[in-house]
C-alpha cells in the first residue's frame, strides 16, 4: 500500500510541476497579470508531495518490504536501521528521488527568500525550476521507478547494501552533494529568466549570487566528505583519485566558484554580463553532464551507478533540452550589451577576468581528460588509453599557482585601476617569512626538508599573507581590523580554507612514510622513527559481518598509541572489506591496513604515516564555512 502511495505522490508532483513549468510562460507571452499567490502554493505542494513520496520509500526500507524491487536489491534484514534509512539513496533509483527532493527544497527556499520580487522575472525563474524538477520526475517514473514491485512472489530476504557504503560518512555525503548539484539549477533558472525578461542587470546578479555561493558550499562539503570517506574506507590511504565520478563533482565546483566571483563584478559594475550568464548555464550544464557520465554506463569507475545506455539517452535528452535551450536563448538575445565601464589590465576587474578564465579552462580541461579515453577509442578505431592521476596532477599545477597568486593579491587591486603597488613588496616579505616558519616547523616535526612541498607551502604563505596577515599587520586600529573582518569574513574563511587545503596536499604528497610488510604477533617494525608493534589478533562479530581484528601499538618518542585494523566479511553478499586503523594527532595520521593471513599468525600489513593529511579536509571545511557565511549574509540582507 505504502509504495503505491509513494508512487502516486510522485505522479502528483509530476502534474504540479508540469503546470508550474508552463503557466508562467503562458502568462508572460500573453502579458497576463503575475499572480504570485499560486507560485508559493505550488512550491509548497511540490515539496510536500516529493517529501511524502520519499518518506514512503524510507518506510519501505525500514519495514523490510522486499516486495519493492529496489528495497530487495539494496537492503537486508540484518542491516542496522540507520543504514536501511541511508540505503534509500544507495543506488540509482532512490538517489534520483533524493535529487528531486533537493530540487524541491531549493525551489521552496527561493520562493520564500526575500530574494523573491513580484514580477515576471521571478515567475519565469519559478517556471524553469519547475521544468527541471518535472524532467527529473519524468526520468524517474519512466526509467528508474523505485516503487516497482516484485509481486506476487516477493523475496523473503534482500540482497544487501554494498558493504563499503555501510558507513556514517556515506549517509550524509550524497544528500550534501546532491544539494550542491541541484542548487546550481537555481542560478541557471535565474539566468534564463533574466535573458527572457530582459533583466540582465545588477539586480539579477545580486539575486543569483547567494544561491551560487550556497550551492558551492554544499558541493564543497559533499566533495570533502567523499574524499574523507574514500580515505578511511578504501584502505590504502588515498583521498583523491581523479576518478570520473569525482571529476563529475569537481568540475561544477570549479565553475560555480567562477560564477559567484563573476557575479560580484556584474553586480558592482554592470560588466561581465555575458560571462555571468554563460557561467550560470555552464555550471548547471556541468552538473547535468556529471549526472549523465556516472549514470549512463559510458565511463567505468569505482563508483559508477546504473550502467544503462537507455537511461543515459534520457539524461542526454534532459541535458540537451535545458542547455541547448538556454544557449539558444543566449544566442538570440539582444547583443547590444553596452559596457560603459572600462578597466585597466591592473584592475580588480581584470583580476576577476583572469580568475574566470583559469577556472573555466581548468574545468573544461579536466572534463576533456575524463572523457578522452572514449574519444581516443572512437578516433583510433579501437586503441585504448587511460588518463589518470599523473596527468591530472600535472595539469592542475600551473592553474593552482595562477589562481593562488590571484587569491593573494585580490584584496589590493582597485576597481577600474590600481595605482599603488607597494603591497607587492610587503607580500613577498611576509610570504617568505611564513614560508621559512613552515619549513622550520616541518623540519622539527618530520626531520627533513623536501622540495616536493615547496610550491604548496609557498602558495599557502602567499594566500595567508594576502588575505589576513598583511591586513592585521598594517591596519593600526583594532576597530579597523574588526570591520575588515566582518565585511570579508566569508571570503577570508574560504580563501584560508584553500590555503590549508593546498598545504595539506603538498605536505602529505611529499613527506609521507609507507611500507608493506609481514608481521607475526609480537613482532614490531621501525618506520622512519615510528615503531609499530603487532600486539594481538582477535575475531569480532558485527551485526552483519565477521571480522579479523589486528591490534597494534605505535610508539613515537615517549608517546604510545593503540589502534586496530579489521578485515570484515559481510555474510549476505560474501564481500570482504578492509577497515583501516587510523589515529590522528594535530600534525599527522597513523594509517594501518590489515592485509592477508599468510600462515599461522603472520599477516601482511600496510603501514603509513601521513603528515598534514587532515588539513586537507580542515581546509575544505573552512571553504564551506566561508561560502555559507557569505551566502547567508546576502540572503538575510534580502539581496
Amino acid at each position, binding site marked *: 500500500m505504502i509504495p503505491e502511495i509513494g508512487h502516486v505522490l510522485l505522479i502528483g508532483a509530476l502534474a504540479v510541476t508540469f503546470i508550474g513549468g508552463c503557466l508562467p510562460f503562458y502568462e508572460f507571452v500573453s502579458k497576463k497579470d503575475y499572480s504570485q499567490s499560486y507560485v508559493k502554493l505550488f512550491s509548497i505542494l511540490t515539496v510536500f508531495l516529493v517529501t511524502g513520496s520519499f518518506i514512503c520509500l524510507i518506510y519501505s526500507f525500514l519495514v523490510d518490504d522486499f516486495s519493492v524491487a529496489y528495497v530487495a536489491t539494496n537492503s537486508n534484514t540484518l542491516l542496522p536501521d540507520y543504514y536501511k534509512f541511508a540505503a534509500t539513496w544507495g543506488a540509482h533509483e532512490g538517489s534520483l528521488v533524493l535529487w528531486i527532493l533537493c530540487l524541491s527544497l531549493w525551489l521552496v527556499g527561493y520562493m520564500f527568500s526575500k530574494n523573491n520580487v513580484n514580477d515576471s522575472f521571478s515567475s519565469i525563474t519559478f517556471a524553469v525550476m519547475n521544468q527541471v524538477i518535472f524532467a527529473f520526475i519524468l526520468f524517474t517514473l519512466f526509467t528508474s521507478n523505485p516503487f516497482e514491485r516484485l509481486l506476487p512472489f516477493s523475496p523473503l530476504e534482500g540482497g544487501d547494501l554494498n558493504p563499503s557504503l555501510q558507513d556514517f560518512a556515506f549517509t550524509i555525503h550524497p544528500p550534501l552533494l546532491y544539494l550542491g548539484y541541484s542548487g546550481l539549477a537555481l542560478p541557471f533558472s535565474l539566468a534564463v529568466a533574466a535573458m527572457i525578461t530582459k533583466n540582465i542587470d545588477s539586480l539579477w546578479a545580486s539575486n543569483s549570487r547567494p544561491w551560487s555561493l550556497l550551492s558551492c558550499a554544499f558541493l564543497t562539503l559533499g566533495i570533502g566528505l567523499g574524499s574523507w570517506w574514500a580515505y578511511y574506507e578504501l584502505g590504502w590511504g588515498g583521498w583523491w583519485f581523479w576518478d570520473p565520478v569525482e571529476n563529475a563533482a569537481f568540475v561544477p565546483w570549479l565553475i560555480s566558484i567562477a560564477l559567484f566571483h563573476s557575479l560580484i563584478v556584474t553586480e558592482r559594475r554592470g560588466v561581465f554580463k555575458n560571462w555571468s550568464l554563460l557561467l550560470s548555464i555552464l555550471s548547471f550544464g556541468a552538473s547535468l553532464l556529471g549526472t549523465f557520465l556516472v549514470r549512463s554506463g559510458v565511463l567505468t569507475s569505482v563508483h559508477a551507478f546504473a550502467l544503462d545506455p537507455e537511461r543515459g539517452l534520457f539524461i542526454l535528452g534532459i541535458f540537451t533540452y535545458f542547455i541547448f535551450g538556454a544557449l539558444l536563448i543566449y544566442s538570440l538575445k539582444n547583443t547590444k550589451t553596452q559596457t560603459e565601464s572600462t578597466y585597466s589590465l591592473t584592475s580588480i576587474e581584470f583580476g576577476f577576468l583572469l580568475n574566470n*578564465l583559469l577556472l573555466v579552462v581548468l574545468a573544461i580541461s579536466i572534463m576533456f581528460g575524463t572523457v578522452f579515453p572514449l574519444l581516443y577509442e572512437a578516433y583510433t578505431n579501437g586503441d585504448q588509453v*587511460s*588518463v589518470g592521476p599523473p596527468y591530472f596532477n600535472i*595539469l592542475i599545477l600551473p592553474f593552482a599557482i595562477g589562481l593562488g597568486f590571484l587569491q593573494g593579491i585580490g584584496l589590493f587591486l582597485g576597481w577600474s585601476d590600481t595605482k599603488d603597488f607597494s603591497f607587492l613588496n610587503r607580500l613577498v616579505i611576509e610570504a617568505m617569512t611564513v614560508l621559512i616558519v613552515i619549513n622550520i616547523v616541518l623540519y622539527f616535526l618530520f626531520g627533513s626538508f623536501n622540495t616536493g612541498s*615547496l610550491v604548496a607551502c609557498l602558495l599557502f604563505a602567499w594566500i595567508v599573507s594576502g588575505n589576513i596577515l598583511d591586513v592585521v599587520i598594517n591596519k593600526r586600529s583594532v576597530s579597523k581590523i574588526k570591520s575588515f573582518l566582518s565585511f570579508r569574513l566569508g571570503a577570508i574563511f574560504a580563501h584560508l580554507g584553500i590555503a590549508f587545503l593546498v598545504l595539506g596536499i603538498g605536505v602529505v604528497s611529499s613527506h609521507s612514510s609507507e611500507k608493506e610488510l609481514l608481521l607475526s604477533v609480537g613482532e614490531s617494525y621501525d618506520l622512519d622513527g615510528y615503531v609499530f608493534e603487532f600486539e594481538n589478533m582477535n575475531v569480532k562479530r558485527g551485526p552483519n559481518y565477521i571480522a579479523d581484528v589486528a591490534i597494534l601499538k605505535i610508539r613515537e618518542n615517549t608517546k604510545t598509541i593503540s589502534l586496530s585494523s579489521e578485515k570484515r566479511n559481510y555474510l549476505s553478499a560474501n564481500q570482504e572489506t578492509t577497515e583501516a586503523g587510523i589515529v590522528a594527532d594535530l600534525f599527522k595520521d597513523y594509517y594501518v591496513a590489515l592485509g592477508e593471513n599468510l600462515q599461522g599468525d603472520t599477516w601482511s600489513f600496510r603501514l603509513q604515516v601521513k603528515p598534514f593529511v587532515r588539513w586537507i579536509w580542515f581546509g575544505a571545511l573552512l571553504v564551506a564555512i566561508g561560502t555559507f557565511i557569505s551566502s547567508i549574509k546576502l540572503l538575510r540582507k534580502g539581496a
Partner: protein
Amino acid sequence: MKALIFLTILLLSQVIAPLEVENPEDEKVLYPFENYDREVRFNRLLEDYRCPKCQSSSLSGSNAPIAKDLKLEIYRLVKAGKEDSEITEFLTQRYGDFILYKPPFQSSTYVLWIGPFVFLVLSMLLVLMFKRNQQKEGADRNLEELKKRLEFDRLNK
C-alpha cells in the same frame, strides 16, 4: 631583495641536503630495497600504472591477484636496475597503453597534453583582443560625444 636571498638559501639547502639514504635490510618488508631512492621510485610507479582488472584503480590501490603479480614483477625490474621507460615498455607490450595512467606523449595525444595550454593562451589572447576593441570603441564613442558637444556649443554661441 632580502627575501630573494632567503629563498635562494632555502632552495640550495634542499638541493644539497638529501644524500643517498640507506635502508635497513629487513626480511619483514614485502618489497625490500637497499636504495631509498629506488623505493620511492617503486612506490611512485605503482601509482602510475593502472590495475587491468579493476574498474578504476592504480596497482598501488588494488588487491586484485593480477595487481599483486604486476607489483611483484615491477619490484623485480626496479631491483634489477631497469629504467622507468623499460618498465613502461614491458607493461605496454603486454597490456597496451591502457595500463598507463599517464598517457604517452605522441601525435594522437598531443591534443590532450598541449590542448589545455593552447586553450588557455588562445582564450587570453581573445580576451585581450576583445578588451582592446572595446576600449577603442569606447574611445571612438567619446570622440563622437566630444565632436557633438563642440558642434552644439558652436551652434549656440
